[in-house]
């Protein structure tokens, strides 16, 4: 039923877009952007419609020479725009999957087709409505259910679940990822709905972003920020400072099942921060109340963090830092029984950026996860699989080198390294822009490390041996419209 409502909504959006396009543009007869799109001969007559108006001294067709438009004449008031992309991604995992019972030990393949529709509507100068709908078709290792079954992590339960629910589609997903309205006033901005809350200055890791599930290895620095049901507000202060905050209505893992405890006010996630400019640095300090579904049983885990972040540059060197410090865990009241260890409570990331000669963009980042282990014997995979931890270790390094060739070809080489056990994964990749709307990309994941390391070996959880990172190849074709 929910899928049917979303489908009807998408059809109505498309119809509205077509209707809006048929109306007069607030800019008059000149289409924006110009219809011809591109490609013209130097020295030839200009391809822009309405150029006859140039003779009158005005660039606006139909306007009297010397007329002065106001700022309100720019923008897209009243217009509805629909855009997005269609991406097909094929991926293959190679080699030992970890457990003897796992299928696809040589090659495990999967494919995903993703259609993301985005819509903007600005009915008023102070109101913006935005919608993002995503439709995914997933097979093989690209399908989480199939992956769980192939690794044995489901303990055989998924087959029974699917058999008991033949009406549910475990391959296709259609959902509204973002749907929000932005209200802009003189000094206050609000967003209401399913809002992307993208806090943090880190590139690969964001310790202060506590409203979304943690992404996988291939999502570092990429993809959209998932929407979170929330209300956000930002109040502009003097000296270009601001106070920002949010109150969310779903836990960080975006749990789909309902829980009786979610009606309790202490299970409401929120965040608040003060942002300011200090010299050439942007600085923010704040607090975040994180709520995540419990790792075991039902209910929620709650954390209160003090947060801080900064970004700026000294000369040609860009730098950023982000951290959260977790207060003792409490269930509505401060808990003094547990001895607080600031070392374990601190999660931080610091990074540097620099553009080397030859236009090579370099980023280096160090991530410290206080609750992580420094000894492989203490590794715990369960929090990683459940989305409660970024990794099993405490210290990680990330490096990225990127260069663009001929404006069409982006080549990158990234590596994530577990600094405690020396294992890591290299992610070389390339993206080629076939045209303005079409791009193809390829990424390879090459892990290394000893047999007991995080990236090179297998880890046991729930009686199953799982290899967290396998060599993989991922190719994608993307059409933007």
């Amino acid at each position: 039923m929910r899928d049917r409502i979303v489908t009807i909504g998408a059809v109505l959006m498309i119809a509205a877009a077509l209707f809006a396009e048929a109306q007069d543009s607030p800019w008059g007869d000149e289409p924006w952007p110009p219809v011809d799109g591109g490609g013209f001969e130097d020295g030839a007559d200009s391809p822009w419609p309405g150029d006859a108006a140039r003779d009158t001294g005005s660039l606006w067709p139909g306007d009297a020479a010397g007329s002065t438009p106001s700022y309100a004449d720019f923008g897209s008031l009243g217009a509805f725009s629909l855009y997005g992309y269609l991406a097909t991604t094929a991926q293959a995992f190679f080699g030992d999957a970890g457990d003897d019972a796992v299928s696809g030990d040589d090659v495990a393949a999967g494919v995903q087709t993703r259609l993301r529709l985005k819509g903007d509507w600005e009915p008023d100068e102070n109101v913006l409505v935005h919608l993002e709908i995503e439709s995914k078709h997933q097979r093989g290792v690209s399908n989480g259910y199939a992956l769980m079954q192939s690794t044995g992590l489901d303990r055989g339960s998924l087959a029974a679940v699917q058999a008991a629910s033949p009406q549910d589609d475990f391959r296709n997903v259609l959902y509204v990822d973002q749907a929000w309205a932005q209200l802009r006033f003189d000094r206050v901005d609000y967003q209401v709905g399913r809002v992307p809350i993208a806090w943090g200055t880190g590139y690969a890791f964001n310790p202060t972003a506590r409203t979304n599930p943690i992404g996988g290895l291939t999502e570092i620095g990429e993809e959209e920020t998932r929407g979170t049901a929330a209300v956000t507000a930002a109040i502009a202060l003097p000296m270009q400072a601001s106070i920002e905050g949010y109150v969310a209505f779903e836990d960080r893992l975006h749990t789909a099942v309902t829980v009786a405890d979610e009606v309790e006010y202490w299970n409401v996630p929120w965040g608040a921060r003060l942002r300011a400019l200090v010299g050439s640095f942007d600085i923010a300090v704040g607090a975040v109340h994180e709520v995540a579904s419990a790792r075991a049983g039902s209910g929620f885990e709650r954390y209160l963090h003090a947060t801080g972040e900064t970004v700026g540059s000294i000369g040609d060197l860009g730098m950023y830092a982000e951290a959260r410090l977790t207060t003792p865990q409490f269930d509505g009241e401060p808990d003094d029984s547990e001895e607080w260890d600031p070392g374990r409570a601190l999660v931080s990331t610091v990074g540097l950026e620099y553009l080397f000669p030859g236009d090579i963009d370099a980023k280096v980042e160090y991530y410290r996860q206080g609750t992580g282990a420094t000894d492989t014997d203490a590794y715990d995979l369960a929090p990683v699989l459940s989305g409660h931890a970024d990794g099993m270790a405490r210290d990680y390094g990330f490096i990225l080198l990127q260069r663009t060739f001929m404006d069409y070809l982006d080549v990158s080489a990234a590596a994530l390294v577990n600094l405690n056990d020396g294992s890591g994964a290299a992610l070389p990749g390339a993206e080629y822009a076939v045209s303005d709307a079409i791009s193809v990309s390829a990424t390879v994941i090459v892990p290394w490390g000893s047999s007991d390391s995080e990236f090179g070996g297998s880890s046991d959880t729930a009686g199953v041996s799982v290899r967290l990172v396998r060599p993989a190849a991922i190719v994608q074709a993307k059409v933007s419209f």
Partner: protein
Amino acid sequence: MTDKNNQRVQKPIVARAIKDGIALAALVLLAVAAKAQDATEVMRRVSEAQDADTAAMRISMHIFDSLETNESRDLFIESYGRGETESYMEFVAPRSIAGLRIQDLDGEIRVFFPSTGRVRRIASGQKSGSVGGVGGDFSYEDMGGGELLDEYTFSMVSEGADTYVIRGVPTDPDSSYDHLVYTIDKQRLVATRIEYHTEDHGHEKTMTADTFQTIQGRLLATELTMMNLRKQRRTVLRIHQAAFDVPMDERLFNPNRFYR
């Protein structure tokens, strides 16, 4: 060997030569200073002719991957400027980058990526990179604002019947360029050509202004071509619409609000 009388004669000659030399050097310095002042005066008049408290423009950028081809990638941008050091631009098309926003506040560049909702800072070393990372031969530094007389030290190279040729040396040690060479139309007081020289590659780029239009009393170059001699390609920038001294929304120039 000189006799006593010759020595007495030689001292005045030497002294006179020194005096003449000093006077000549002073004249040369004065002439150079006068030329520098002339060049500065010319650029001051060029800058004043373009002065506006605010400016709003719709721009298209056409990127050709070689000097000969006529096939281009096309970008469409809305640009707003306030004063000499504050600017904001938003990419309107193509769809793959629509919504990308770039704010420059006195050299502090922030880029908003609509797909992730994140704002990233651009370090000054990345100012030589293409605007928004979308390619093209116009860098952040090329498109950034700023008061000409503050950003460069000018000297006159030559003066012809119709043009001045003026050399500008950046005052910012972080600038990507060693010096620029301006060709100024005497009558219209506009730059019709700018050469960009770097220490490593010499004459690296040339920008020419190909079409002019009078907008609100200002003579505006509405078509600019940047020829990248090192990479053997070019980018054409066209101004579709422009307005000056129009009211600006304060949020465009607020680092915490420009992306909302």
